[in-house]
């Protein structure tokens, strides 16, 4: 089927960070989610948050090796958003009578559990990084996130040589690890 190969290509693009694919998926599905959230007691900002969260879930799913999407992208996104939004409404105590439109839904509970776990990990790392302070934060971001090499980092931060930068990086990393692992419990 043509539709299928098209969707597969989109997902592949998404997994590879192809901006055209991301744009297409975004454009094709955002309004549906926005309408759903707005119709169910939500605001524009909340609609955007929920939708982007679903996009991240789809992105992470698309990146995994064993990835198969057994339904249309639209259905998947709608299902995830619906689940996320109902949960959010419940948390906010705004839970009224949810209104469903015609879209069918698929079970996404398992995916969302993985997603939530990753969310939690992300938040721990984010908090840890942000409580490091400068220049530690930028130094580690430069090395681990932007994958800059030590010489470039030394130049950017004004260390006299790469070894000094390395030394500083080591200290920062130890602090970050300590912060991170104090909250991140293995096996939980």
């Amino acid at each position, binding site marked *: 089927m043509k539709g299928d190969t098209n969707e597969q290509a989109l997902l592949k693009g998404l997994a590879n960070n192809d901006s055209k694919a991301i744009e297409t998926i975004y454009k094709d599905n955002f309004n549906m989610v926005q309408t759903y959230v707005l*119709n169910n007691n939500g605001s524009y900002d909340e609609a955007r948050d929920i939708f982007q969260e679903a996009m991240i879930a789809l992105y992470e799913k698309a990146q995994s090796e064993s990835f198969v999407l057994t339904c249309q992208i639209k259905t998947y996104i709608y299902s995830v958003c619906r689940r996320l939004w109902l949960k959010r409404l419940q948390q906010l105590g705004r839970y009224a009578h949810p209104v469903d439109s015609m879209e069918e839904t698929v079970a996404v509970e398992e995916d969302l559990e993985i997603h939530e776990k990753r969310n939690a990990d992300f938040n721990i790392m984010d908090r840890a990084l942000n409580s490091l302070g400068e220049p530690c934060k930028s130094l580690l971001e430069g090395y681990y996130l932007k994958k800059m090499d030590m010489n470039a980092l030394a130049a950017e931060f004004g260390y006299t040589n790469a070894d000094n930068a390395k030394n500083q990086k*080591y200290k920062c990393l130890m602090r970050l690890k300590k912060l991170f692992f104090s909250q991140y419990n293995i096996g939980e």
Partner: protein
Amino acid sequence: MDDILLLEAIERYLTGDMNSEERSYFENLRKTTPEIDQMVVEHNMFIHQMDMYTTRRNIKHGLHEVHAYLLERGDLNEGGELTTIGKVVQFWNKYKKVTAIAASVGGVIALFISGLAFYFSSAVNDPKLEQLGKDLEVVKKNQQYQGAVIQEVTSKIPSNARLLSGGSGFLISTKGYIVTNAHVLKGTGAVVVNNKGEEFKSSIVHIDHEKDLAILLINDPEYVPVKNIPYAIRKSNADLGEEIFTLGYPRNEVVYGMGYLSAKSGYNGDTLSYQIQISVNPGNSGAPVFNKAGDIIGVLSTRQLQADGVAFAVKSKNIYTLVDSLHSSDKAFEDLKMPVKSTLKGIERKEQIRKVEDCVYYVKAYGK
């Protein structure tokens, strides 16, 4: 300093930057020194977390950018007041042209086809059958009556147009799409009136004389979309003997009627419709026919003159055919989404009617 070197070694080992000699030496070190082994495992895990963090941060950032970009290009609508009126207006502005063309094409086709239908259609022009659209005189009378009651409300029918016929219709989408009978729409346009007597301008977006169905779209800035549509529309056939009820406008007020499904085919074996046993009057045309659970199973269209209470309803699955052809004809109708979930099941009839009546409209067609 040793620690720094060790960490560097671990990182090089993990990223695969070591040559094979170094690598085998390091692996040996791991085997013999549990502390180092533990450090490698821990650091690997940490690096993995950092990588996940990075990807997540990048995609988040990317999504924000895409959002801003699409917003700027006008592919997304956001902001402004939260009322749904805004959306209808936006929709209307966006598709003004399309709707206008659709409406005028629809109008021309309507005139043309009603001419054709007059000559060729056997069932509808059978003297034994009566269409349930109201004729001019009755509607006119009602119009005067309404004018007398609410004087300050001026009709939205263009002043140079004449009122031609009237009937009922019902919403199939919260966006203001209304299904009615094709024969109700005798003229070039229509206004719809809700159960509170408020009039809204609408345009004919699709008309199918063979199935005797038409779709109107309310395009009035005063229209406040309903929150949700309480009923579902049945795709499959209804069963013989099913209890049915209808709400329509044979008068200026919404009127309830109840009956049962008496045959799976319509007049002269017409498979597009059902025969139902119900007491109906002119003006009921286009009214929804519900089953007991509150699903729409048909659209009331004609009655048999010489038999009492025998009426015919176009099967609801034809609405889907109509909507499908609309969807494939123009992208502008993508927002027409039909309700699938009924919230009427198992509740009392009075309650069902209360929920449904906001979605049933009085349709007045006008022409020049």
